[in-house]
């Protein structure tokens, strides 16, 4: 079992994510519906329900360093099914924004997309990837 000692710093981080996402993260009671609905859960290092729990506990480093926040595709399936009406797509976006705003590192850059791919990808793919993964 993992024991986490909560400090004021942890609480502050949890509050920041609630504010930026506008979501009532503290309401989550760990039913797991989000994790079972998520189409990319199998690729994630933290399941969506774990992500929410770690926010409640203010675990900033683990959250901002996770693969999960870059894998969420904002499909809103978890939100559609959440009995506590928490929109995890908004939560993941808030966490991504915290990283992008702090570190100012673009995860996708138009110049790094191979030319052949760039020519065949629909515009909406490129624009949405840039919107999600760059500042």
């Amino acid at each position, binding site marked *: 079992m993992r024991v986490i000692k909560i400090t004021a710093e942890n609480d502050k981080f949890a509050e920041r994510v609630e504010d930026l996402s506008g979501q009532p993260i503290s309401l989550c009671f760990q039913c797991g519906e989000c994790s079972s609905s998520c189409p990319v859960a199998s690729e994630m290092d933290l399941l969506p329900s774990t992500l929410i729990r770690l926010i409640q506990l203010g675990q900033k480093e683990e959250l901002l360093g996770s693969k999960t926040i870059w894998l969420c*595709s*904002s499909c809103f399936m978890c*939100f559609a099914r959440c009995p506590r009406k928490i929109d995890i797509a908004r939560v993941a976006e808030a966490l991504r924004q915290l990283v992008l705003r702090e570190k100012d590192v673009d995860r996708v850059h138009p110049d790094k997309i191979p030319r052949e791919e760039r020519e065949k990808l629909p*515009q909406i*793919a490129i624009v949405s990837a840039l919107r999600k993964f760059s500042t």
Partner: protein
Amino acid sequence: MMGGNGLEQLYFPGCTLKTTAENFEITAKETAKVLGVNLVEIEDWVCCGTVHSLTTDDLMHHLAPTRILIRAQEMGKKMGLGWEDGCSLFTLCSMCYNTLSQLNELVKESPDKLDIINDFMDEEADYEGKVKVLHLLELYKQIGVEKIKAKVIAPLNGLKVAPYYGCLLLRPKKVAIDNLEDPTIMEDLIKALGADPVDNPYKSKCCGTFHTVDKPYLVANLAYKILTYARRAGAETIVLSCPLCAFNLENRQEEIKELYPDFQRMPVFYFTQLMAIAFGLGDFCRFETNYVDPLPLLKSKNIIKVKG
């Protein structure tokens, strides 16, 4: 308003309908004409941004969709398109539909945010929040299956079609065009065209969307599941309404084939392409731009007779 080509309705094409999804736009306009609707493109439009911005402090990315709705609002007024209650703006691409609809919901819920956005934009009229954003499938539902059936001259008899809704027509719930767990709007259309809709468990599971840019094999795996379950359920083809879903489910079949050599390719249609075939307007479908050639399937069903 009745124009020379029937009832005029405003529509927003979005970027991709002018490039990789031209076959979607042209078949939408032509099938609408058959049903007595002239889709009028709004003037001076911009890209909607493709995704609704999800953080509470980011208003900047709501400017583009607001500008589009202002263009529609002003054109609706000029053309006298039922302005008292606000005019309708039809979309074809699911991403545009979702981005514009979610913006409308945001300004309804947070009038203070709308005030800030309006104040920020000097050159345009204020957005009044009354444009109704609708998807073309909703227009065809309003027109009704009986009227659509009456226009079918080449029924798609025996064609087994799995509808693929994806995410953005159905979620979040406040912008859903149909029941989000059990939609039927595409099934009804498929039946009206004479084809057989095939239910399948992945019809509203995400195709992987923008991950296609930097994680094509993640998308190929998701697309493989969607296509394989549709085939197992008896489908011969998939029909959809989003140019990004179309790319992921169709073009990424190349990557699927690398991962799963036994995979059998499956053609993918926009719903308007199927309508065009059934209405005898197959020439507008531009199948040569499809990555998976659908003609062998259509020929095997005697739906399209191709010269040569």
